């Protein structure tokens, strides 16, 4: 316990050191304030944006727009990748059908196919959500397939010997067995979609955190860029904490079997 609380202090210390370095370097004019704004200036920009919004929309709607896109894409990924992953893990035939497609698109840089998505789906939210969906789908699908492969064979046999048909074994044993892997997949997928967020808001967007950062860069508003990046980082940490909390409460047996 003592060691753990020590580690917490160490983490705080590193954050504190970085902030001090930032403050020092701006206060002592080590860097050009045009490129590295001072903490005070960033705070000021943050307060401004909170009060007046950025380019016509309040800050909350920028965050809301981004989160809405993320949430929709994520929802779509969860309802497709999990069943498909379970089916692929269960049946080699299904896997043979789906795997090559995923193995092909997964390593592609999202920006490369984003151009196509825009051509097909237009410049509205549909193409953005499709891009984020693709980013979330692959890691989630792969985690679920791996999860099915890891289920002890005897566990499925035990269920069958207790009277579960193949279909029921799928629903009542294979699915819950994969829950820990599903949560791991969700965390990875969350990271992937988040990194694609800025890319998704690059084309024809007028709102969103990613767009705000890109737009600010055009006007050399480094303070706004900082605000956007810090906000994205904080929200990412909060989202990850949320998923971890969900995993802890929903799959308390994880790692203790």
């Amino acid at each position: 316990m003592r060691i753990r609380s020590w580690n917490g202090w160490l983490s705080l210390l590193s954050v504190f050191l970085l902030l001090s370095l930032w403050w020092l370097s701006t206060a002592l004019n080590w860097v050009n304030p045009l490129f590295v704004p001072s903490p005070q200036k960033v705070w000021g920009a943050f307060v401004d944006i909170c009060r007046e919004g950025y380019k016509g929309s309040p800050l909350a709607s920028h965050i809301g727009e981004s989160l809405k896109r993320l949430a929709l894409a994520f929802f779509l990924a969860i309802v497709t990748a999990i069943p498909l992953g379970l089916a692929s893990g269960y049946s080699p035939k299904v896997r043979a059908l789906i795997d090559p497609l995923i193995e092909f698109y997964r390593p592609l840089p999202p920006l490369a196919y984003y151009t196509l998505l825009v051509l097909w789906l237009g410049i509205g939210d549909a193409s953005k959500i499709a891009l984020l969906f693709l980013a979330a789908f692959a890691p989630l699908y792969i985690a679920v397939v791996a999860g099915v492969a890891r289920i002890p064979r005897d566990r499925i046999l035990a269920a069958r010997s207790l009277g579960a048909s193949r279909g029921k074994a799928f629903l009542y044993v294979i699915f819950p067995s994969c829950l820990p892997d599903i949560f791991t997949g969700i965390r990875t997928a969350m990271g992937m979609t988040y990194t694609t967020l800025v890319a998704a808001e690059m084309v024809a967007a007028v709102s969103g955190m990613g767009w705000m950062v890109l737009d600010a860069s055009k006007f050399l508003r480094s303070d706004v860029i900082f605000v956007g990046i810090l906000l994205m980082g904080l929200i990412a940490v909060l989202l990850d904490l949320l998923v971890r909390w969900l995993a802890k409460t929903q799959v308390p047996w994880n790692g203790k079997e």
Partner: protein
Amino acid sequence: MRAIGLTESYDASPSTEDGERLVSIEEVSLVYGRGKKEKEVLRNVSLELREREFVCVLGASGCGKTSLLRLIAGYEQPSSGRVRVLGREKAEPRPEVGVVFQHANLFPWLSIRRNAEFGLRMQGVGRAERRERAEEAVRRVGLGDAEDKLPFELSGGMKQRAAIARTLAASPRIILMDEPFGALDAITRENLQQQLRRLWLASRQAIFFITHDVDEALLLATRVVVLGGSPGSVAVDAPNPLYSEEESTAELRKRQEYGKLREQLVESLKHA
């Protein structure tokens, strides 16, 4: 099949010959793999299990005892010969044939009671009834206080008792047990043997029990089968002369003939 000393004191053994035949294995061979990787694990094995019997199959590791159990459970298909279980030859798991594994193999996301309910739930038994029957089974193995716990919160011995409760609750006609106490410490193992014996004496459910522990076989079985060799075959198949309905396992161990029988069995295991 070699004759052994076990049959000398036949008089004390129960008469189960008249019980209905639940499992019959006739000249079964089992070969895994193909071509160069081919491995014959069982050769020409014939066995049967009747109602009210507690058959212990003894054998060193690698002699195919687990394969034999998997054949009866319907997890494997014999390469040749016939495996008939409750009048059917189709190799398919089913609720009439319960299985207790070496490692408890409980469903980690379900509480002990819900684990015990699983079989009944799969068979479509109503909520109230299955809850009652599951609670009854959990109580029978002495886990009443732990019924709401998740498996990872239990000790190894408790997990194994929960696994037995899960199988009992589904009320199978045959229970197959694959070295269920093999991974437990000596004291827990003895407790569980004692408890299983009591449970069996009360219900007389047919049990097919696999073990490598000679004492376990002598203390629990109505009939002892020694499997040996590679590929495995039946070396001994005889009623257990030590079988008794009254005595506790501790009293059985104190019986005069215990030592001698034990020695004979060890000997036959060595030469099997």
